[in-house]
């Protein structure tokens, strides 16, 4: 592994498209459209506005504007009548709470200002992690458009008392008649709520609780139940693993809620312990992108490979089929056996039998990595019970349905059956935070508060008992589901009192309630439950699995969830819609991912337009008689014969118009199975316009932006400066000298005071994008919408670049394959069917010798002594010279006013959405440049806190939004003048390098070379 590797960002770039080349030369992808106006002579001549008129207008408007500016507005200050004791205006309060919305679960800290939550961060003490969706959940709180505001019955407002009376009367009527009532919820993982539901069922013996997860992991839970007698998901301690083999399990995405923290903890080259991770998959997933070796096979072959692995590991001979990757599988089996109890196999196939095989392999390996005691409770959905419920509703067996925060009409593949059944019910009650189709079809609609307004508890695994507390007064007339159920079971207790006594008696064991609430969690002892081992016939499971996979024909569809939208619960959240997918870099869309070979055969392509946007052709996808028309995205690394499509899009009911994007893939999600066989794909007419940033911010052929080394290289004694982390050399005075020895600028003494540096470890960065959303929230970064993203005007201060690189990376490797001459280069640069992927978070590098600063005509951007490149928005006149001169392409121009502008109808254009704005950071106006400030408002706040307390700043006290959101510890921020700070050592590390170091901009953002475990001896 050396630097001969070719890095590329899109298929078009590999093909050598001239447009891509042109684009890479331009700072702004779109030309200013002067020609459109000036070039058209006719328009000019026919224009009724003469030059004189034009000058008059200019003069008049300038005069009017200046006159208007003379009068400042009168501002009112309205203080509290009674100020709450714990609120100091202008000072943030942090509350520990838990998020549990049915799909995303996290122990979090919530920052509130003047009683408004404005940011969510991981509760690191509780070992909490946040994803982009958890970070963005704070904006969904203020979703005025979708949130339910008052209880209604049949569309008419009704009081809570009347609603309760009527529901209770109906419930007792159904009880008398012994007609079944079903309580349909998502996974809540809440012990106190489970108890309340028990009480409700005791009071209404005709009631039943069914758990429905839109995106199900029913197979894994069922398999675990069969083998270990408990319906839960096993936990995986990937930090201790030596060999990880995953068959399509996107465990850095949503598999088991995401295992990125323990995964990354087990991949530290500096400690010498780095797991070897092989991903066998068809879609290019986040996990596959991070793996050491990615084996590309279509889903049916994944099944056979899994069976073959089982055979190879256990020596059994269950029915299977030969695949093209059998030699790799054999190698994997021997690796796994060598790792023994430190090996683990995971599979993302939502199929009980496949999951059983994986569990059996782990059992055969005697794996310590899989934890069957400390199980996960976050995916309790039961597909079988849900389909039973639908048939019971249709047949009239079920007469009442109380649903809570689920939308089966949107997310069921057989939603028409569900709606039909719903109409037959005698009682339909929807308790929901947000409006949706199911709510709309229900008779009683009872609004529930957002989790940031609620009391509650959540137990994600068996150890951490998380508590949920309100961080804001309820915005609307809502009531918690627990209060409703308590009321309907005839219990007059308020849920808060119930929760407190429940936790005190059952969980806390004498420990203080207030302390647990303050911490947001309480750690329990793990109870071992191995006694319950059931005998399962693996050969049966294997036979069933293999026979179903043998039926595979046509294209194979792998349905998946995207990092941005997940199961689609937060589809009305503009931050998530604008969040570019880590792999495809497309926002505001889902699409059919197709391999390059299949695309060529079927005639699909993604031509790049001259404004840097890419287009796509439409495909008609049919499965089981259901059809959807989706745009196609050609995806390197997609298995030939397979296609991928994301769930969670295409939601329309009640959503803002801009947010109604993508195609609903749930109709294809038959029986909750993420793999669908027998799919036909057919090209249909039409061109789709993608909003994809992958071509727009190209690196213009600049090499050395990325450095990748193997574990063997990094741990060897070879001098990195001459092997895997070579510094840049430049020609000076006809000699090759190290770039850092010469400089255009004078050196400043930076040893006094603070000097901030940010270190980004490319090995630990999984590309999850939590930092991107955290940056949005912290810095009031505007959302610009699909059209603007398409033309490259996205405002992300922090983006995560994704680079592909080809498998045959070096000349040596090519030569070893017997290539020479032109073929050799072609092989190196050939468009790879299975590229390696590297993520690189990119933001303002805060160069000590910043090219942008020297070209600003008004000195609006200048350098601070603490290392930050400062941007004074009020000084900027918008010449955009700085952006042109920035080699990193991180400066963003405000082409429009993005706040209070109906053209950009996102959160900054409505009174509720604006409540999420950070009051310490100004909302920029049109015509100014902006960029990452290295969260100067946060570093200044830390300094001020120390000053007020009369002490020096503590070690590692400085944080930025991105570094505190980063749960894998890839981003480390601090003061390098404090040698105790973690970052001080990282900057000096042998893996550290500056991007484009031959330019000698001396960035204050330092990257750590990405290390891959190539599993060499």
């Amino acid at each position, binding site marked *: 592994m050396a630097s001969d590797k070719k890095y590329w960002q899109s298929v078009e770039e590999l093909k050598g498209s001239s447009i891509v080349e042109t684009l890479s030369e331009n700072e702004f992808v779109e030309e200013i459209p002067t020609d459109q106006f000036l070039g058209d002579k006719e328009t000019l001549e026919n224009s009724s506005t003469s030059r004189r008129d034009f000058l008059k207008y200019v003069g008049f408007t300038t005069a009017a504007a*200046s006159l208007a*500016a*003379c*009068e*400042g507005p*009168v*501002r*009112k*200050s*309205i*203080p*509290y*009548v*009674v*100020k709450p004791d714990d609120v*100091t*205006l*202008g*000072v943030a309060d942090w509350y520990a709470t838990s998020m549990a919305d049915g799909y995303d679960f996290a122990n979090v800290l919530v920052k509130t200002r003047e009683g408004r939550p404005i940011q969510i961060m991981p509760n690191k003490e509780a070992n909490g992690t946040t994803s982009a969706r958890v970070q963005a959940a704070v904006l969904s709180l203020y979703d005025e458009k979708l949130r339910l505001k008052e209880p209604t019955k049949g569309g008419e407002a009704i009081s809570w008392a009347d609603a309760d009376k009527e529901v209770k009367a109906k419930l007792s009527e159904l009880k008398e008649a012994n007609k079944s009532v079903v309580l349909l919820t998502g996974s809540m993982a809440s012990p106190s709520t489970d108890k309340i539901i028990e009480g409700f069922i005791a009071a209404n013996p005709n009631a039943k609780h069914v758990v429905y997860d839109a995106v199900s992991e029913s197979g894994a839970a069922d398999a675990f139940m069969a083998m270990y007698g408990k319906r839960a998901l096993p936990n995986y301690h990937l930090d201790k693993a030596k060999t990880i083999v995953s068959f399509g399990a996107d465990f850095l995405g949503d598999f088991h809620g995401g295992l990125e923290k323990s995964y990354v903890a087990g991949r530290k080259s500096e400690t010498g312990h780095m797991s070897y991770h092989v991903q066998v998959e068809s879609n290019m997933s986040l996990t596959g992108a991070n793996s050491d070796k990615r084996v590309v096979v279509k889903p049916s072959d994944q099944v056979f490979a899994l069976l073959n692995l089982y055979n190879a590991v256990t020596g059994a001979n269950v029915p299977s089929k030969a695949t093209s990757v059998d030699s790799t599988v054999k190698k994997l089996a021997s690796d796994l056996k060598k790792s023994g109890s430190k090996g683990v196999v995971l599979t993302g196939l939502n199929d009980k039998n496949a999951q059983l095989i994986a569990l059996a392999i782990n059992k055969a390996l005697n794996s310590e990595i899989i934890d069957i005691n400390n199980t996960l409770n976050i995916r309790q959905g039961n597909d079988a019970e849900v389909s039973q419920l639908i048939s019971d509703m249709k047949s009239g067996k079920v007469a009442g349905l109380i649903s809570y925060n689920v939308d089966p009409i949107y997310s069921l593949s057989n939603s028409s059956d569900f709606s039909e059944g719903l109409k037959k019910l005698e009682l339909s009650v929807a308790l929901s935070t947000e409006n949706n189709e199911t709510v709309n079809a229900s008779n009683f609609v009872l609004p529930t508060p957002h989790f940031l307004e609620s009391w509650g508890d959540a137990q994600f695994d068996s150890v951490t008992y998380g508590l949920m507390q309100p961080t804001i007064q309820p915005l609307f007339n809502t009531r918690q589901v627990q209060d409703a159920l308590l009321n309907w079971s005839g219990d007059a207790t308020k849920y808060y009192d119930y929760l407190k006594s429940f936790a005190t008696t059952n969980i806390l064991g004498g420990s203080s309630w207030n302390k647990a609430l303050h911490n947001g969690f309480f750690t329990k002892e793990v109870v071992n439950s191995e006694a319950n081992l059931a005998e399962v016939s693996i050969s049966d499971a294997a036979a069933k699995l293999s026979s179903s996979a043998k039926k595979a024909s046509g294209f194979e569809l792998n349905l998946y969830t995207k990092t941005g939208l997940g199961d689609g619960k937060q589809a009305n959240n503009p931050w998530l819609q604008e969040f570019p997918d880590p792999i495809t870099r497309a926002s505001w869309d889902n699409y059919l991912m197709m391999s390059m070979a299949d695309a060529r055969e079927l005639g699909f392509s993604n031509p790049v337009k001259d404004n840097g946007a890419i287009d796509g052709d439409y495909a008609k996808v049919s499965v089981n008689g259901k059809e959807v028309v989706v745009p196609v995205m050609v995806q390197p690394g997609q298995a030939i014969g397979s296609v991928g499509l994301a769930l969670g899009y295409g939601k329309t009911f009640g959503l803002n118009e801009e947010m109604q994007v993508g195609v609903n893939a749930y109709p294809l999600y038959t029986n909750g199975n993420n793999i669908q066989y027998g799919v036909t794909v057919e090209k249909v007419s039409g061109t789709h316009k993608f909003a994809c940033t992958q071509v727009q911010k190209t690196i213009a052929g600049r090499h050395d932006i990325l450095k990748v080394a193997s574990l063997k290289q990094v741990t060897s004694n070879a001098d990195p400066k001459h092997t895997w982390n070579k510094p840049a050399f430049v020609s000076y005075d006809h000699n090759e000298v190290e770039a850092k020895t010469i400089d255009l600028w004078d050196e400043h*003494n930076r*040893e*006094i*005071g603070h000097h901030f540096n940010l270190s980004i470890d490319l090995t630990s960065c999984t590309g999850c994008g939590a930092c991107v959303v955290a940056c949005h929230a912290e810095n009031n970064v505007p959302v610009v919408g699909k059209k603007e993203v398409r033309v490259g005007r996205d405002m992300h201060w922090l983006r995560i670049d994704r680079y592909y690189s080809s498998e045959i990376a070096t000349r040596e490797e090519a030569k070893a394959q017997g290539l020479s001459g032109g073929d050799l280069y072609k092989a190196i640069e050939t468009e790879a069917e299975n590229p390696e992927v590297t993520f690189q978070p990119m933001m303002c590098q805060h160069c000590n010798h910043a090219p942008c600063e020297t070209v600003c005509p008004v000195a*609006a951007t*200048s350098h*601070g*002594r*603490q290392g*930050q490149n*400062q*941007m*004074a*928005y*009020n*000084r900027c006149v918008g010449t955009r010279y700085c952006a042109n001169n920035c080699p990193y392409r991180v400066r963003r121009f405000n082409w429009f006013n993005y706040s209070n502008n109906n053209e950009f109808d996102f959160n900054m254009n409505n009174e509720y959405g604006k409540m999420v704005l950070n009051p*310490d*950071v*100004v*909302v920029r106006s049109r015509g100014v440049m902006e960029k990452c*400030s290295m969260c*100067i*408002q946060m570093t*200044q706040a830390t*300094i*001020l806190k*120390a*000053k*007020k307390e*009369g*002490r*020096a*700043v503590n070690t590692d006290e400085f944080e930025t939004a991105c570094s505190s959101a980063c749960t894998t510890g890839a981003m480390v921020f601090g003061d390098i003048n404090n040698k105790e700070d973690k970052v001080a050592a990282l900057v000096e590390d042998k893996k550290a390098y500056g991007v484009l170091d031959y330019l000698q901009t001396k960035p204050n953002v330092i990257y750590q070379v990405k290390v891959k475990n190539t599993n060499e001896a």
Partner: protein
Amino acid sequence: MKSVELHNRLTKLLLKSFTFLLIFAFSMSSYSQDIDEARQKEGKKLFKSLCASCHKLDKKLIGPALSGIEERRENDWLKAWIKNNAELRASGDRDAIAVFEEYKGSNMTAFPQLSDKNVDDILYYTTVGEIKKKVAVADNATSGASSGEAPGWLIYILASAIIVAFLMIASLLKQVNELKGNTAPGESSNLKRDLHELWAGLKRNTFLKVLTTIFLMLIGAYVFFGTLFKVGVDEGYQPIQPIAFSHKIHAGDNKIDCQYCHSSAKHSKTSGIPSVNVCMNCHKNISEVADDTVVELEDGIVLGKEELDLEIAKVYKAAGWDADNLEYTGETSPIKWVRVHNLPDFVYFNHSQHVTVAGLECQKCHGPVEEMEELYQHSPLTMGWCIDCHKETKVDLKGNDYYKKIHEDLAKKYNVDQVTISQLGGKECGKCHY
């Protein structure tokens, strides 16, 4: 300038002089009663310090109104009650028990430390009440206010006087000339002719022409830019507030610490407009101002006791306080103050940095607030004004461990004993603009 009503200084002046005249004319009336002033003063002092938190003279508070109490109760009974009412009740005194029950069993503090003379003084005060000294008060108010006002209008008057004087001299000169017979009356005057010649000369002299043009252009530019630079600078901005709150009475006369009300100034970026419950800490007991309190607003409006009591009633309305039954009704209506000091959104200013860390007096930026009957913006709040201070001010960093090392290093670097704020980096754009 802001588009709110501003006070007309001229009317105010006129009104002020008018009131002064009126008051002066009627100031002949003098004390009406024969009062032992020393005793009254002594009694008042004791009353204010011991009794006033629960009693008023003319109004029920926590305890009964005490005006004329001597007429209603025996002196001995009062002494016994004041010194130790619990004992009196325990002795089975019926009146005492009745009073106790009437006031819902609220316990009155015992004052065994008071001598008989003390109690008599207090009772004397309750009987004679306040001594009225109208003249002195009015006099003070008028002269006090006008002395602080001089420059603005004085300049206009002086200027007009000079112009008038100039015109008079000119006409006198003209007459003298005519009388001397230099010119016949009716012909164009000397002055006019001189001006003509000057003009003709000017027209001929290119150098003078150019010089005059440049001079005029410079003046024009000066005026033009001077005007532009004042756009958005609201020095002196003094909007009318929903409640005629006087900082002079609170911070000046009663010496309430600024940060008692603006309590977040030491913790936060904002100084915090006090919530109404902070007002109620005192105003629960102070439902009316002292009889002689007068607030003079800029436009000559003089608020006396009657008006000011109504202002306090506004606070009660906001807090939802029922002053008659002494209880909160829960019907609150927040006060919509007009913000006086406005910084643009793109500036980050933090009070606690200046108040807690730097230890600045509030008056440094806000001016003599304790003398302001109605608050105005004292400083221009422009960036130049901020920077000037940052450039000049040497920071007193003693005792703050944060600065220990950094100050040592910087002092060595700049070769000074004490560094200025700008040497510390207080002039960097990003420190205030983000």
